[in-house]
């Protein structure tokens, strides 16, 4: 009888696994299909508007050539510069912040963290109006939007210290103390002991800081204020999909999407491991 029950369980298990495989296949298709569509439509030559089929009747690189002749080059370069600068500067700022709040116990630490928690509850959108006017006074809008966006993005990045602080919290404090007893200064502890151990979180921070600007839309649009030379890819490509432009630019948008997504996705897949580590740690620590 026991044997029979065992057999029953086994076939039940097999049945449920089959159901799961079917579900996973459906999920994979649903999740990938839109991206497959984008790629297919980017090679469509016969017309530039939305149509009721996905496989092009005439294949070609026309849309990619059109990208090259449009302002897209400039937008791409703008975004790349912002992403690169953010990756370096935001990483430095966030690591300073999170390391300090994780390791040092000073009088204002508690109040400071509570203050930043409250500050984070204000919608960031609220401050756009004044930041725009300040940047305009500094001459960092429109064609000069790139340095302006870098400045604002980097300056307020200290607030996002939570994930990396969670990571530093997991490095045992006894390491620091041992080195301090041996006469190392605080700076030497950071430079020689903590940083080598913190490689995963450094890579995570660089990766997220680099990827952020590729999707940045609202503030970038605000700062560029209709000047194409100051657009990033999100703002520029959005302008192709407005009701009066979409029939001319739809397939070009698809081609642009491929060009933007490809390098970021490849980079992401290579560094996936670190991203997962960071994201999981951050969620657990809150």
């Amino acid at each position, binding site marked *: 009888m026991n044997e029979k029950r065992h057999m029953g369980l086994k076939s039940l298990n097999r049945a449920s696994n089959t159901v799961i495989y079917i579900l996973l296949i459906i999920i994979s298709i649903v999740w990938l299909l839109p991206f497959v569509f984008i790629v297919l439509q980017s090679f469509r030559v016969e017309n530039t508007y*939305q149509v*009721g*089929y996905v496989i092009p009747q005439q294949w070609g690189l026309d849309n990619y050539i059109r990208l090259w002749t449009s302002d897209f080059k400039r937008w791409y370069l703008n975004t790349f510069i912002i992403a690169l600068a953010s990756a370096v500067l935001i990483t430095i700022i966030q690591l300073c912040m999170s390391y300090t709040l994780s390791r040092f116990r000073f009088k204002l630490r508690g109040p400071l963290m509570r203050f930043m928690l409250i500050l984070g509850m204000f919608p960031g959108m*609220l401050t756009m109006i004044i930041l725009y006017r*300040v940047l305009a006074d500094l001459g960092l809008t429109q064609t000069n939007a790139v340095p302006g966006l870098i*400045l604002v993005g980097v300056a307020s990045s200290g607030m996002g210290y939570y994930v990396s602080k969670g990571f530093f919290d997991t490095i045992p404090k006894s390491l620091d103390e041992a080195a301090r007893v041996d006469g190392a200064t605080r700076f030497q502890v950071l430079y020689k002991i903590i940083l080598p151990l913190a490689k995963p979180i450094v890579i995570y921070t660089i990766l997220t800081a680099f990827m952020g600007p*590729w999707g940045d839309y609202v503030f970038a649009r605000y700062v560029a204020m209709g000047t194409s030379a100051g657009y990033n890819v*999100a703002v520029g490509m959005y302008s192709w999909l407005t009701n009066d432009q979409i029939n001319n630019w739809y397939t070009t948008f698809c081609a642009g999407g491929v060009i*933007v997504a490809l390098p970021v996705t490849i980079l992401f897949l290579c560094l996936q491991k670190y991203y997962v580590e960071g994201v999981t740690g951050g969620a657990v620590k809150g």
Partner: protein
Amino acid sequence: MKHYSDLEYLRLSKGQKIGYKIGSFFTGIPGAIGHFFKNIGGAIKQGAQAVGNEFKDIGSTFANGDWKTKVSFFIMGFGNIARGQVLRGLMFLLFEVVFIGYMVLAGAHWMAMLPSLGKVGPSSEYNAILDTYTTVYNDNSFKILLYGVLTMFFIIAFIYTWRVNVKQNQIAEKILKSGKKLKSGKDDLKSLVDDQFHKTLLALPLTGILVFTVMPIVFMILVAFTNYDGSHNGYTNNLFTWVGLDNFNTLLSWSAGSGGGQSYSATFGEILAWTLIWAFLATFTNYFLGMGVAMMINKKGIRLKKMWRTILVMTVAIPQFISLLYVSKMFARNGLINLSLMNLGWIKQPLPFWENPMWARVSVIVINIWIGIPFLMLITTGILMNIPADLYESARIDGANAWQQYTKITLPYMLFITGPYLLTSFTGNMNNFNVIYLLTGGAPTNPAASGAAGSVGYTDLLITWLFKITTGADSQYYLASVVGIMVFVVVAFISLVVYNVLPSIKNEEDFQ
């Protein structure tokens, strides 16, 4: 509501337990709010006491200090220099000189203008030589408010520095009296990479936050009490000025707006309600479905785990504006889905994904699931694998089926670990500008709300409404700022209640 002790609670039936938990959550809310106000009261009392003590301390420092200390009350850093700490003293002195210079040259002017935000607007002046009228710009309300705020920050910084300067004299006297030596300038510099290393590390990030986050927020809170908008931009057309609580009254008024339609408070209430419903659904659909997908992939006997995960993770990497914009157009009236279905002859009329309020709301939630599941799958996979396997083992031996294992082991564990994440995710979704704005732009328009600023739509969240107000025809910045403050109030209220009611606030030090 009756309060049970632990023992009594354990004897309740399952239904009663759930009822009790839900009940105690809601009965806990007034307590949490009361606690909050009590805390505020306590904090004010403590603050007043601290200020009193400070004054006492300053007074006694002056009365008991030597002449070097007394001079330092007026010439900052004098005591430091006289006692050999030249570097520190010079820093204090420099700060005082800069501060006084700034106040005399500019600060006093801005502070004097702050109560009125400017008196003389732009005027037309007759130019006798050219025989034309030219516009002359005079006061600039925006600059007055901006530099007024800056000057206030500067004054606070000065008072703080002055206090530190006094305190240092007091400490230095004490140290010298006990026969020890004071730190030299070289020691001070050295300590910046050692004992005081945190100051070095925090200097840059905190300056950035102060200038680009704190100051703008203070400024925008103040704007809520002015009439700053497109036609009162404070410089080229009309000046703006303080209006007290008028804007809050406008937003919460019950009478119909100027353009007809329903009252402002009804519009605000509708948007707030949808924002909360959206945040709730977006958070929990993603959470449970993402966990479901993670569990399916994690299940023993499922092959190609890595492939399934990679397929989903790939979609996380693609910048959201591409996927959101593309999907938004895919579901449009003349988009891929509608055209294909019409080609196939399944439908005659295009489906109103973005035209019908109900369809639009359901569509954004469903598409948000598509966006969110891979991310949640990533987060939950790691945590699920950390649940000790022997828990499941013993549950299986006791004869628990899969559903029981899920509700008794997996779910409680997950909720406990990800509690804080759920809260931040909820408030994040309340402010999820990208998904709503890139998918629908707030459409379809709500005709009943035509009286309100910024053409309100059925899928608008408070945050997208705020954006539409600022970029709309009249650019009613003051109203946007009131909405922003309201968002803060709601988010702060929810966070506070959840934090006080949920017992899972973990002691930070436990992790180290």
